[in-house]
């Protein structure tokens, strides 16, 4: 496709997307007004919008707090996941012994563990970072191990005939082959890290968007509840989008579709 054609398509896509979003919000507003839905059940978007503007300073500060803990946990999970995956991949005995626990951890709702984390690490940001970390860490590790193992044995053989050792095989072959797997996990982990940070605040904190939602719930303030939801949604979309942008920069070759 020509650059001009690509630009035109991007423009059309953007128009459709804005129209869809506008239609959704407009339809919501219309239904709430026409049916006279009480504010306590679903407030109109205009009411939520007004409140968002009213308290934007607080929302921005508390969103930033939550986003920071989520990002820190996420970064640790990505780095730790890659390192542990490399260790597991390089030792079949370790991998066979430990991998089942990682897979099992996917089935166990480990968020239940969060209460203990608050007891250990306190009410501050550290406990949220830890919760965001362990919610994202296992899936990332599993994906990276799978990715490292997915390279073509013939390609490994080829590099070995050139005299490649473990480290060269890792850098020149396993890591690039693993990248698409890592990015799939990293996109999914954006939401688990955010969930960890938000839910972590419910177990104990006095700041953050999770705390804000909890306070709105106790006060039965539906408008503020929806303000919290909007903030969470915005953080999730921006986070996911940012990771996707990084992925496009780093994965320039046609990789196997994994999701």
């Amino acid at each position, binding site marked *: 496709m020509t650059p001009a054609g690509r630009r035109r398509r991007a423009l059309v896509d953007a128009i459709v997307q804005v129209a869809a979003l506008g239609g959704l919000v407009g339809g919501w507003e219309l239904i709430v007004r026409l049916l006279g839905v009480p504010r306590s059940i679903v407030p109109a978007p205009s009411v939520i919008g007004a409140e968002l503007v009213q308290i934007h300073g607080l929302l921005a500060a508390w969103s930033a707090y939550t986003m920071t803990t989520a990002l820190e946990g996420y970064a640790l999970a990505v780095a730790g996941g890659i390192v542990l995956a490399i260790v597991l991949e390089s030792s079949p005995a370790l991998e066979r012994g430990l991998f089942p626990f990682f897979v099992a951890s996917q089935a166990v709702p480990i968020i239940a563990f969060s209460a203990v984390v608050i007891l250990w690490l306190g009410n501050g940001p550290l406990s949220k970072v830890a919760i965001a970390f362990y919610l994202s860490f296992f899936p990332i590790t599993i994906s990276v191990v799978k990715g490292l193992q997915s390279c*073509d*044995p*013939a390609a490994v*053989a080829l590099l070995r*005939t050139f*005299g490649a050792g473990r480290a060269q095989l890792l850098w020149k072959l396993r890591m690039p082959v693993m990248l698409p797997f890592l990015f799939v996990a990293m996109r999914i982990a954006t939401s688990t890290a955010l969930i960890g940070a938000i839910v972590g605040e419910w177990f104990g904190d006095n700041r953050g968007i999770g705390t804000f939602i909890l306070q709105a719930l106790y006060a039965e303030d539906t408008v503020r509840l929806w303000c919290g939801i909007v903030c969470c949604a915005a953080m999730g979309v921006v986070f996911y989008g940012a990771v996707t942008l990084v992925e496009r920069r780093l994965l320039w070759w046609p990789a196997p579709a994994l999701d």
Partner: protein
Amino acid sequence: MADKLTLRHIAKTFEVEGRRVPVLQPVFLGVAEGEFVTIVGPSGCGKSTLFNIVAGLLPPDPGGGLLVDGRPMATTLGRVAYMPQRDLLFPWRTVLDNAVIGLEIQGVPRREARRRALDVIGQFGLAEFAEYYPFALSGGMKQRVALLRTFLFDSDIMLLDEPFGALDALTRSILQEWLAGVCGTYRRTILFITHDVEEAIFLGDRVVVMTARPGAVKLEVPVGLERPRSPALVTSESFVALKKQILDAIRDESLRSFATQARVEEPE
């Protein structure tokens, strides 16, 4: 003169479900410096196993060994330039960077490796494609990149395992002629596996015919044809006579292998 590469008593037996399956009978073969030896044989005769052993990927059965310049080698890993059947280009590397990966692994700095690649890339017909990614190339071009990668790897011994096997007949004959030319320029010691008897004669200084599994050397035929060789050669009397001799030998073996076929696939 001592041979560049000597295969001394190279045999291989695989253990399959508790049974011992011999794939290679002891193979003895010497390849002189600068010689182009082609290997043909019925399918499943252990040619690829033989190559994996020479490349250092598989140990031969005890008692056998490889000699380079008359010296026994503990391993040939990092010592011979091996080109497998598939091109195995890395999609995240450009043509140029794919070509230099062997040099990189040998420890040549990337800048120097690229310079060496750019010096010869024109002879591989890839000069304009240095910065392309493999997905944009045709099958014949990918194979030439893989050949360039094999040529650049700093080794005087090359193992080519059916490099043109997956190509269409026309591309194949063009690449054969081109390879014959390139090999004339850079005298390398080459072992070349093929299914194609014409290819084996056209390219080789000597054609080695293998027996059916378990493989061994059945016949060695020196190809006394002058170089440079032109495609017209394949219809000449001496070429046809060689072809008949080799085809008869292979047919013999294929029939034998068909009759006594072991029900075990050769592991890759």
